[in-house]
């Protein structure tokens, strides 16, 4: 326990990088994911094909391989990004198809009957979308999106394997330096991850219970 308290600055340095990775890649994954989801449901066939291929390929590639590409292959090809930026790019790309799928399943999950009913009572396209379809899609989308961000939080640890000093890397370094207190060191790091994932999980579960549309 003393080891953890003595090394709080190291933990904090790692944890703030974890938060930075989570924040930046969370936002950019949301942007890329929304674009992909929009392509996926657009009437333009080639965009749909592109989005589908992108989703399938990225989702079936291990994150370790994606981050290896960003940290080692990209510099090899001549990029000059630092490792943290490379990891952010990798995490954003890896997370984006999951965001896209969550958004798409939210919109697709609204039964066609809802839009038909809206139109049959005389609502126009804008009204149908803004009053009937999107509110329901939004309710169905937020809890799975939070789950995507929980997964992203845990995935940031993989960046620790590719030269980014975040919580996992901090834990590994401290564990190597304090061989007699490995358990305390690693539990300290676990607590930091749980401090993000458990509150998010509680929020997701609560929203899910509150917002589930009973059919």
């Amino acid at each position, binding site marked *: 326990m003393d080891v953890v308290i003595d090394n709080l600055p190291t933990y904090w340095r790692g944890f703030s990088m974890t938060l930075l990775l989570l924040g930046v890649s969370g936002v950019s994954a949301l942007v890329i994911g929304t674009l992909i989801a929009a392509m996926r449901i657009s009437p333009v066939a080639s965009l749909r094909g592109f989005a589908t291929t992108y989703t399938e390929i990225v989702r079936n590639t291990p994150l370790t391989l994606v981050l290896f590409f960003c940290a080692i*292959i990209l510099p090899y090809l001549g990029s000059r990004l630092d490792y943290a930026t490379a990891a952010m790019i990798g995490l954003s790309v890896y997370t984006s198809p999951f965001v896209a799928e969550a958004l798409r*399943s939210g919109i*697709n999950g609204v039964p066609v009957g809802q839009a038909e009913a809206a139109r049959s009572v005389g609502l126009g396209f804008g009204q149908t979308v803004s009053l009937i379809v999107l509110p329901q899609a939004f309710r169905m989308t937020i809890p799975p999106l939070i789950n995507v961000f929980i997964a992203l939080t845990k995935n940031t*640890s993989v960046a620790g394997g590719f030269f980014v000093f975040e919580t996992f890397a901090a834990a590994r370094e401290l*564990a190597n330096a304090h061989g007699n207190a490995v358990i305390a060191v690693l539990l300290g790091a676990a607590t930091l991850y749980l401090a993000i994932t458990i509150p998010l999980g509680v929020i997701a579960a609560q929203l899910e219970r509150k917002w589930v549309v009973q059919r």
Partner: protein
Amino acid sequence: MSGSSVLFDAPGPRARRVSLISSIVAGVLILAALGWIALTLAAPRESGGITLPGFFDPSRWDIFADPQVWRFIIFEGVWGTLRAALTAAVLAVAAGILFSLLRSSEIAWIRIPTAIVLEFFRGMPVLLMMLFILLVLQTGAFWAVVAALTLYNGALIGEALRAGLAALPRGQREAGLSLGMRSLQSKMLVEFPQAFRQMLPIIVAQLVVLLKDTSLGYIVGYVELMRVTLNNLASFYGNRYLFSLFVVALALYLTMNLLLSWFARWLSKRTAARSSGQRLPPDDPGQAMLLAKANAEARRSDTGHSAGGPLV
């Protein structure tokens, strides 16, 4: 266009023409971008005074003509990955059954600690668990990878099974009990087989995640596909082959994972067609799990109402 049918009318001739034209324009743009990437890769590059040939040059791919290289990739790399994934898959399903039994136990001091431990396993990065097992239990890299994947995926499969049990009609359990079975007997003989079949697609989809996560073994030093190709072979044959080895590793991972995902999708279509019209979205295990839970919740509140209502 199943996605847009919610929002749009069926397109008329003008809308169809517009979408055809924009489709061609977008397709040309996408192909141009891909072509630009290919040309950039194909161009020879100066590096430290030496001109390296482009990436499509035979001198960057010639090691793949050697069957020894493939033997190494398949028997060390792919087999290392599959061995860890298979062991962890079997153990994770067993752990899932155990977790869901403990988690739904009627005794509070079994149920509550299990819930806390499961929350812990689910909220922690798998990589950190691997490091923990490797350093604290000194099991060696293989068992560190397998044990961490077992605990994490076991916790998720346990949740799926629990949702499956909750979604079963109550009569199933009552029928088992009324035949004189004890609670555990009715669970194992009547409820689990049904829940398991209902949740099979989710479990297989979770196994895709497990297969992908074996690559974390690269970081903790387990010899699997990534370590064999991108570390061992790349340092043996030299940096020149790093990119080609990456392409091969990516292709092998995609093949394994896509085959397993297709199997999961096929399985879920088959079980959906057979069982009573209850459909689970096959794509994403997390998504499917949410739906299953929502179904279970709805069913529970239904039975709750009818049990408490004046009509019963």
